[in-house]
C-alpha cells in the first residue's frame, strides 16, 4: 500500500517536472546578466527594464489586450445565449446545432485561420484588429458555451419555474435568477476565453493586418531577428499572467460547486 503511494507520488512529481522544468528554466534565464541564454553570468533585472521601455512591444501588448477584452465580451454574450437556448429551449435539429457549435474546438486551428482569412478577403473586410477580434470571438464562443452549459445543466430548472410562477417574465426570470446563479461559470468561461485570446498565435497570424501585431506575433518575429533575454522576460510575465487567469477561472467555476 505504502509502496504504491510512493510510486504515485513520484509519478506525479515527475509529471510536474516534465511540464514545468522548461518554463522554470525560461524564467530563471530572464534574470541572466548574459545576453546569451546558454551561460549564467549573474542576476539582473535589466531585461525587464528593457522590456518596459520597448515601445513596439508595448503597442503589441495594447493590441493583445484590446483584442482579448473585446473578443471575450462578444464570445461571452454569444456563448451564454447559445448555452441557454441549447439547454433550456429544446428545438428541432438541436443535435446538429450542438455538434456545429463544438466543431471549432476540434478542427485544426490552422484550417480555422485560413478559412477566416479567406472569408474576410471574400467579403472585402480589410484585415485589421477588427478581423483578429472577430476570429478570436469565433474560436472562443464554443469554449464559453461549453463551460456555461455544464453549469446550467446542473442548475435546477425548478428555480426558474418558481420565478415564473411568481409572475416573472421569462426575461426577468433569466436576469434575476438564472444569470446570477450562472455568474461564476460565465466569469470563468470569460477568463478562459481571454487567456486563450491572449496566447493565440495561429488564428491571429492569418487574420492580422496593418497595425494589428499582437504580443504572440511580436514574440515570434523577435525570435527570428536574434534571441534576446527580453523574450524570456516577456514570456515569463505572459506565463504567470496566463496561469493566474486560468487559476482564477477554475476557482470561480469551483466556487459554484462549493455553493451547491
Amino acid at each position, binding site marked *: 500500500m505504502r509502496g504504491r503511494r510512493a510510486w504515485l507520488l513520484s509519478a506525479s512529481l515527475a509529471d510536474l517536472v516534465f511540464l514545468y522544468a522548461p518554463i522554470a528554466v525560461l524564467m530563471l534565464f530572464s534574470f541572466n546578466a*548574459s*545576453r*546569451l*541564454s*546558454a*551561460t549564467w553570468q549573474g542576476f539582473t533585472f535589466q531585461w525587464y527594464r528593457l522590456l518596459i521601455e*520597448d*515601445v*513596439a512591444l508595448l*503597442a503589441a501588448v495594447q493590441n493583445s489586450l*484590446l483584442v482579448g*477584452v*473585446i473578443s471575450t*465580451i*462578444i464570445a*461571452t*454574450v454569444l456563448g451564454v445565449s447559445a448555452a441557454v437556448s441549447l439547454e433550456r429551449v429544446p428545438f428541432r435539429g438541436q443535435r446538429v446545432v450542438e455538434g456545429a457549435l463544438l466543431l471549432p474546438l476540434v478542427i485544426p486551428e490552422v484550417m480555422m485561420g485560413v478559412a477566416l*482569412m*479567406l472569408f474576410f*478577403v471574400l467579403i472585402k473586410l*480589410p*484585415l*485589421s*484588429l*477588427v478581423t483578429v*477580434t472577430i476570429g478570436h470571438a469565433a474560436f472562443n464562443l464554443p469554449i464559453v458555451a461549453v463551460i456555461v452549459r455544464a453549469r446550467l445543466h446542473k442548475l435546477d430548472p425548478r428555480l426558474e419555474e418558481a420565478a415564473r410562477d411568481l409572475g416573472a417574465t421569462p426575461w426577468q426570470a433569466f*436576469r*434575476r435568477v438564472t*444569470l*446570477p446563479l450562472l*455568474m461564476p461559470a460565465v466569469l470563468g468561461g470569460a477568463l478562459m476565453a481571454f487567456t486563450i485570446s491572449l496566447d493565440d498565435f495561429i488564428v491571429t497570424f*492569418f487574420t*492580422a*493586418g*496593418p*497595425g*494589428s*501585431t499582437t504580443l504572440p*506575433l*511580436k514574440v*515570434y*518575429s*523577435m*525570435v*527570428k*531577428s*536574434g*534571441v534576446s533575454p527580453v523574450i524570456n522576460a516577456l514570456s515569463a510575465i505572459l506565463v504567470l499572467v496566463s496561469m493566474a487567469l486560468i487559476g482564477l477561472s477554475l476557482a470561480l467555476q469551483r466556487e459554484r460547486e462549493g455553493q451547491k
Partner: protein
Amino acid sequence: MRDLAHIRLSTFYLLPLTFYLLISCQPTPDDGPKNTPKAGSSDASQTTTTLHYFTWSDYVGPELIAAFEKAAGVKVVVDTFSSNEELLAKLQSGAIGYDVVVPSDFMVSIMIKQGLLAELDLTKIPNVSMLAEQLRRLPFDPEHRYSVPYLWGTVGIGYDSAVIPTPPDSWAVLWEPRYKGKISMLNDQREVFGAALRVMGQSLNAKDPMLIEQAKAKLVSQKPLVKTYTSDNYDQLLASGEVVLAHGWGGPVARAMAVRPSIKYVIPKEGSTIWADCLVVLKTSRNKDLAMRFINYLLDREVAARTTNRLLFASSNREAKALVDEKVRANPAVYPPDSALNRLEWIADVGEAIRLYDRAWTELKMR
C-alpha cells in the same frame, strides 16, 4: 448578495455598449483620407495621416520613428514579420493597408513579377544618389524603379580564432572532419547549396541538374559534421562555444563577437553571397508620397548610421559609413573589405531549377 448580483448584471448590460465604443474608436486601415495631403505639408490638414510600415522585428529604432512622426506630422504604425515568405503570403492573401515594406533582394523580384509594387518617384527620394557603388545597379531592379536597397551584407563563415588558429580562407573548412559537431549551417537551401557550389568553383546560381546533384552529394558528405542547420541562433551557438564554425550572415556573427572577442568573420576566397533588404512601396498604398518621404528618411546618412550601429548590418548610404562607430566600420562582418566585393554574387531567380533545389534540399534534410 442581491446587490452584488445587480452590479454584475449592470456590467453585463454595459458589455455591448463598451464593445461598440471600443470598436468605433479603433482606427481601421482604410480610415486615411483618400487624397493624402502632400507629405510634409500635412500640417494644414486636420486628420493625422497614418503610415503603415511592415518590417523585420527590431529593424528600426523607436526614437527614429518618433523623430519622423514629429517632422512629418504623421503617425507611423510598425508591424513585423519574420520571413520573406510570410511577408509574401500576407500580401498575396489580400492584406491591404501597408505602405512601406522591407523584402530581401530575391523577394523584390518576385513581388515585381506579381505586380505588388508601386513605381517609385526617385525625385522624392534624393538620398538614392548616396547609394554605395555596389548597390547602384541591382540585377533584380537596375533602375530602382520599384526598390531601393536599405541594409546589405554578406554571407560568410564566423569562426572562433581561439580554436582555429590559422584563419580559414575557404569554404572547404566546413568539410574538415576535425570540427565534427562544431559546425552550424544556415537553414536556407539556396545559401547552403551556394556554399557547396562555390567550393566546387561554380556560381551559386547554377541551374545545371548535374551540378546541383554534385552539390547535394557534397552536402550529404558534410552532414555528419554539422551540428545544426539554423538561421536564427547561430550567434548564440558561436558565442557560447557550442559551435566553432558558423555559416551565416555577417550581422549575427558581429553580435557574437561582442560577447566572445575571439570570434572572427571571413568571406571565403571562392566567393559568396551579397544580399540587401530593400525598401519598397506597395501598389495598394494610399500614402505613396508619404511612403517615399519615409524611405528617403530611412536612407538619410545619420538615420542610416544609427541603424547600422544598432543592428550591425551595413547601410546602403555610402556617406553613412563615416558616421558609424569606428569598431563597427572596421568589422568585416558588417562592412566587407573592398577586396572581397568583386567575388560576391546576388542570389538570382533560377527559374524552373528551383524545383531541383527544393528536392535536393528535402533529400539532404531527410537523411
